[in-house]
């Protein structure tokens, strides 16, 4: 063996030998195990304490969350709710008689709903509205209470309400928030023939069945339609709005609806006014209103329509040829979604035969709705109205409307 190799082996031996020399014997190993076991036990104790503290912290966090949700987060579980809607209109209409041109901007409606839940079975609803932005002497607007009633749930399927409520007729009288309909202005049938928004005071029973059939029966205050002057036999002028209203002669309304197939609905209503003028012997006596409406949605396509008809008794109303007043409209539409909201296009055809000569007309319109979110809508429409009587031809118009509406 060479000298160099001998030296290398000697060096390695010197490095390894101490390790063999430090190997613990069994007693030393036992001592180490005992020491480590002690550390494990201590760690276990600390872990258990940490677990307890964590559980305690979780309880505190949950309790804090419970509390914060009652005082900080606007919870939907409050028993009193405030909601609302509003709409701004711009009309630009050119009439045959230029003196009747209309170019105006108007905050048509600002509405607040107040509701209160007295219990699971007793609820209060109200709707307070400012029309045309400014109310008061000489101002164009009004402050109106359109709903204020208490609803009592008798069973799961039957309820009774009393107070001031919307009459269950037509398509927009009860549901008229701007994002729910096409067109800046509501349809004319539910302006001239059905005086929407139409509310009365009284009591109503409502019931519904699992197959989608529902019914309403209401006894309520009646119309007081004028029989003389420029608004003679105009239904809309007969609304008393439950403002110290004459209650000599009540009215009754019943409605039947079927909505048992999603996307499809059909409804019919009948109303009897015991004396539509509230004055006996003035030539306008009983009034009967019949309405039928239907709608169907197939994917993005929708179509809906309404027919309404009044029949009045009385020599004066018959002499004025206003004893039968009718109106209908049909409205196809197409709504589609994009990444930046929904768009809808629609057309509407209306035929109205009202009480006044100027209320005999046909109207054609089409337009566009844009919903950036469900509860906000921008609208544009183009309208053309043609009156039936040549004497009213000066009121014929065409033009466009712009609108903005919201609800929350």
């Amino acid at each position, binding site marked *: 063996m060479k000298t160099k190799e001998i030296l290398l082996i000697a060096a390695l031996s010197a490095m390894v030998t101490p390790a063999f020399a430090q190997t613990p014997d069994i007693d030393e190993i036992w001592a180490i195990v005992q020491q480590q076991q002690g550390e494990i036990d201590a760690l276990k104790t600390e872990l258990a304490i940490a677990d307890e503290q964590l559980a305690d912290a979780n309880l505190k966090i*949950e309790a804090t*969350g419970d509390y*914060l*949700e009652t005082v900080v*987060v*606007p*919870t*939907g*579980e409050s028993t009193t*709710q405030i*909601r609302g809607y509003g709409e701004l209109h711009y009309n630009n209409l050119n009439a045959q008689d230029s003196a009747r041109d209309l170019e105006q901007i108007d905050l048509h409606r600002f509405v607040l*709903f107040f*509701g209160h*839940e007295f*219990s*699971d*079975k007793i*609820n209060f*609803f109200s709707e307070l509205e400012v029309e045309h932005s400014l109310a008061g002497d000489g101002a164009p607007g009004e402050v109106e209470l359109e709903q204020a009633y208490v*609803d*009592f*749930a*008798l*069973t*799961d399927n*039957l309820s*009774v309400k*009393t107070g001031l409520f919307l009459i269950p007729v037509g*398509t927009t009288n*009860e*549901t008229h928030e701007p994002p*729910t309909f096409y067109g800046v202005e509501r349809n004319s049938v539910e302006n001239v023939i059905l005086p929407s928004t139409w509310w009365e005071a*009284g*009591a109503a*029973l409502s019931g*519904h069945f*699992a*197959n*989608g059939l*529902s019914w309403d029966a209401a*006894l309520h205050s009646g119309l007081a339609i004028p029989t003389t002057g420029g608004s003679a036999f105009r239904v809309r002028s007969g609304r008393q709005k439950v403002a110290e209203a004459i*209650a*000599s*002669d*009540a009215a009754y309304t019943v409605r039947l*609806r079927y*909505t*048992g*197939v*999603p*996307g499809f*609905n059909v409804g019919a209503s009948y109303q009897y006014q*015991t004396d539509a003028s509230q004055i006996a012997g003035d030539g306008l006596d009983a009034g009967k209103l019949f309405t039928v409406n239907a*709608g169907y*949605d197939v*994917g993005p396509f929708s179509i*809906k329509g309404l027919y309404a008809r009044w029949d009045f008794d009385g020599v004066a109303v018959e002499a004025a040829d206003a004893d039968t007043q009718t109106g209908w409209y049909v409205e196809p539409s197409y709504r589609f979604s994009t990444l930046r909201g929904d768009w809808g296009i629609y057309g509407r055809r209306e035929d109205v035969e009202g009480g006044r000569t100027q209320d005999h007309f046909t109207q054609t319109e089409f337009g566009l709705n844009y919903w950036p*979110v*469900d*509860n906000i809508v921008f609208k544009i429409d183009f309208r053309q109205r043609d009156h039936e009587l040549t004497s009213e031809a000066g009121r014929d118009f065409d033009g466009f409307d712009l609108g903005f509406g919201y609800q929350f």
Partner: protein
Amino acid sequence: MGSKSLISLVFVVSIALYGALAIAAPGVYQTRTEFLQEALGTEKPDSDVVWMNAELRNVVTKVLGHPPAMLRMRYWYDASRTAWIIDEIGKEKPITLGIVVENQEIQSFSVLQFRESRGWEIRYPFFTNQFAALRLGKSRSMSQDIDGISGATLSVRAATRSANLALVLDEYTKRRTQAAATTR
């Protein structure tokens, strides 16, 4: 009979009718306990909460169209299903909905309590059946459109948003469970 007499009669009958039926009137279609019993087979299933952290709050805001009115959402679960009780306002008042999700699909959808003045139709099977087996589609929206009901638009939307929320939160809890398992 004159109108005044008739009005008085209707008033008295209404009060009497309400008094007679009020005691028996349930007001709530299904209690939370009944829903959980039906959904998961026990009145007291395991439960946990999802805290609305910043990321989740953004997601939920997109789904609901408004910020969530809660700091966290409690849910109940078993080996394969999660059950959610969600309050969402249609027009004015919260509608309480019970939704069960299994394998990322809606297994059942029911209205536990309805407080709105209109839109009661959404509690019946002809409407709720539309949610069966729906899952998340593009951009976390529902995989299929829900047909509306005339006069109940806002209730239908509230129901649809709630179903969408249940699917989104179910997905979140699954991801959270998987992440925790991976960490271990």
